[in-house]
């Protein structure tokens, strides 16, 4: 009888031990995955993020466009959140500051971005603090800012802009004070297709939003996606030469590269051909003039027509993956993870439900996860900023 009693009490103690361990772990747990939608109760306001970056306090800065029914150009706003995506502050720039362009560039001195003076159409360089407050650094004599990037190698800012007088795409290398270090100009060309009209419609929001971007591989090779000789093209050139080393031609604004990152002499990019999307996770740069249609890619029919694509490289479990983020036809954000080496699709993941969701920016986080800033339409009608954060464990589960 004593043995039975002993077994009985031991088992009860063991069960209690098992249960209490799991419960204690849950009580102390904090979610590493989060979803947030930033709402302001307004019927007429709409928001669309441009870029996001993680701050040193693990929170996020989100650069966004803000519109109401009376806006002509989109105005500029900066959101600051904590590490769980909980809203901290919103700083609205004056109404004459319009058209913010990505990227929101993280530098040792702070966070920079460019926007446009609504009256002069010239570019403004803005410095943002960790808390999301801003200072105008300078206004530059460069009209129509289109895209910006950070040149890690030289510690300079890159700005792609459009010179309407000369009909040229302009790449300017600037120091963080906004002083020009060098400049390269590329003619947009003339022909039966009016490239300038396409750019103006992009700015005014009356035409398709075009995939302008610029960047560098960090080893002296610069690139931009913009109009070059009649077509929306990806142009690669060496600093100082002013002559393109490689051009991947598109066709008008109907066929083009629409996202790219570079490392060494390799690129990962996506291309859009008459509404269809293709991923090219690893392409080795070969100098010369090429047509985008000659570069083979993986067709992804589930992607919404003319949807913007963001591409970046992210380490997961000590392996680098090329990650594409885009918007699917059924209103979700689609993430596609490719191995850079053998171009294999290692996993994909979809975010969002009920309301439509679209992606605008994606960044790696300090804890090994990723954060995604996008746009959702609450109740199918109110355009708001959303933030997804996926943890390192989430990424490990996605990749197989």
């Amino acid at each position, binding site marked *: 009888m004593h043995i039975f009693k002993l077994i009985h009490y031991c088992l009860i103690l063991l069960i209690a031990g098992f249960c209490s361990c799991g419960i204690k772990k849950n009580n102390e747990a904090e979610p590493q995955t989060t979803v947030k*939608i930033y709402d302001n109760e*307004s019927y007429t306001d709409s928001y669309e993020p441009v870029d996001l970056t993680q701050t040193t306090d693990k929170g996020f800065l989100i650069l966004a466009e803000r519109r109401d029914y009376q806006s002509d150009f989109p105005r500029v706003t900066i959101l600051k959140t904590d590490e769980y995506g909980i809203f901290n502050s919103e700083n609205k720039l004056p109404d004459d500051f319009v058209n913010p362009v990505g990227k929101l560039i993280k530098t040792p001195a702070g966070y920079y971005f460019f926007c446009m003076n609504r009256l002069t159409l010239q570019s403004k360089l803005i410095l943002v603090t960790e808390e999301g407050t801003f200072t105008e650094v300078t206004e530059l004599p460069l009209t129509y800012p289109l895209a910006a990037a950070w040149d890690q190698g030289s510690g300079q800012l890159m700005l792609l802009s459009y010179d309407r007088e000369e009909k040229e795409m302009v790449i300017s290398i600037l120091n963080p004070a906004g002083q020009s270090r060098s400049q390269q100009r590329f003619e947009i060309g003339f022909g039966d297709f009016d490239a300038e009209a396409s750019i103006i419609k992009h700015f005014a929001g009356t035409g398709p939003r075009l995939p302008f971007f610029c960047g560098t591989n960090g080893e002296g090779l610069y690139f931009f996606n913009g109009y070059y000789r009649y077509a929306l093209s990806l142009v690669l050139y060496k600093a100082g030469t002013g002559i393109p080393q490689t051009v991947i031609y598109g066709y008008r604004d109907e066929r083009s590269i629409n996202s790219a990152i570079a490392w060494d002499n390799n690129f990962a990019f996506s291309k859009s051909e008459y509404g269809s999307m293709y991923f090219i996770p690893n392409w080795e740069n070969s100098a010369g003039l090429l047509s985008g249609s000659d570069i083979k890619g993986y067709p992804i029919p589930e992607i919404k027509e003319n949807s913007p694509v963001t591409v970046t490289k992210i380490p997961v479990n000590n392996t680098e993956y090329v990650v594409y983020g885009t918007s699917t036809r059924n209103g979700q954000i689609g993430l596609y993870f490719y191995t850079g080496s053998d171009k294999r699709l290692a996993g994909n993941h979809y975010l969002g439900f009920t309301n439509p969701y679209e992606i605008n920016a994606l960044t790696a986080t300090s804890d090994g996860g990723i954060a995604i800033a996008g746009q959702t339409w609450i109740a199918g*009608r109110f355009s708001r900023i959303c933030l997804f954060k996926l943890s390192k464990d989430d990424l490990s589960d996605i990749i197989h």
Partner: protein
Amino acid sequence: MRRQCVCFLLLLLTCIAHNSFAQRVQKRATSPSGLNDFLDKQLFIGIRGGMTLAKALPTERYSVFSSTTGNSSRYDKNYHNFSSPGPVAGIDITYKYLGLSVSLQPNYRRYRFIYENDYVWRDSTGEWSLELNYRQGNHLDYIEIPVFVRYEFLQGALKPFIQAGLTYGYLFSAGKSVYISGQDAASGGQSFDAAPVSENARELFIKSQLGYAAGAGLSWDIGNIRLVFDVVYRRNTHIITNREQRFTHNRLAGSGDAMDDIKLRSFTFSIGCLFPTRFLNAQYYKTSK
């Protein structure tokens, strides 16, 4: 998962040990002189069923929505407490000694609770607006193993009693149904209802639930069976929301839903029918004092 399997195995062994222990203290009375001693002890086995009314007590509130105007309380959920009955069914193993009993009552039970969110969007003039109501029905299905100590006040056929005990619950299923309705004053003032969405929500809650309970009831010996009516109030001791998984359910999070940290409170109303397992011989046929 492995931990839960081990837990169940241990619980099973505990029940076996408990029953074995109970069987070993049985004594067969063989003469009228031992009648009183014999009737002081009894092992009842039976079934019980009933309903439970639950309350979800939020200890910390969360939302997918984050207000940029400082009006975050707008997203707090409005809970409907003790309003949705859920079924309870199980077995009852009660060992009685004099007026005291120890009762093991493994059961299946469903806790149900409802919460609502109301959202309003207006333009600056107040002329255009959209009002939305999200009504979320939640149900949690547990296999629960409570152990009660019961004290009966009186002797005779009708015996009121009080009881208190500890409970362990294992969540094996959970679900949510979302009903969306609203009033669209901007498009002409029509009210509307969207088709409900039902989702498996098991990942949103932790598997184990520990708690304590207290209640009162009445037992009624009719012939050779005992009927038991009781009401028990239960409190779980910890948060049952899976805090790590709060935002991982894509379909629910995508529609704007995130669980608060909640604890459960509930009333259970049940009826049991118990059968004694120890009998005197036919001449002194009796089972209980």
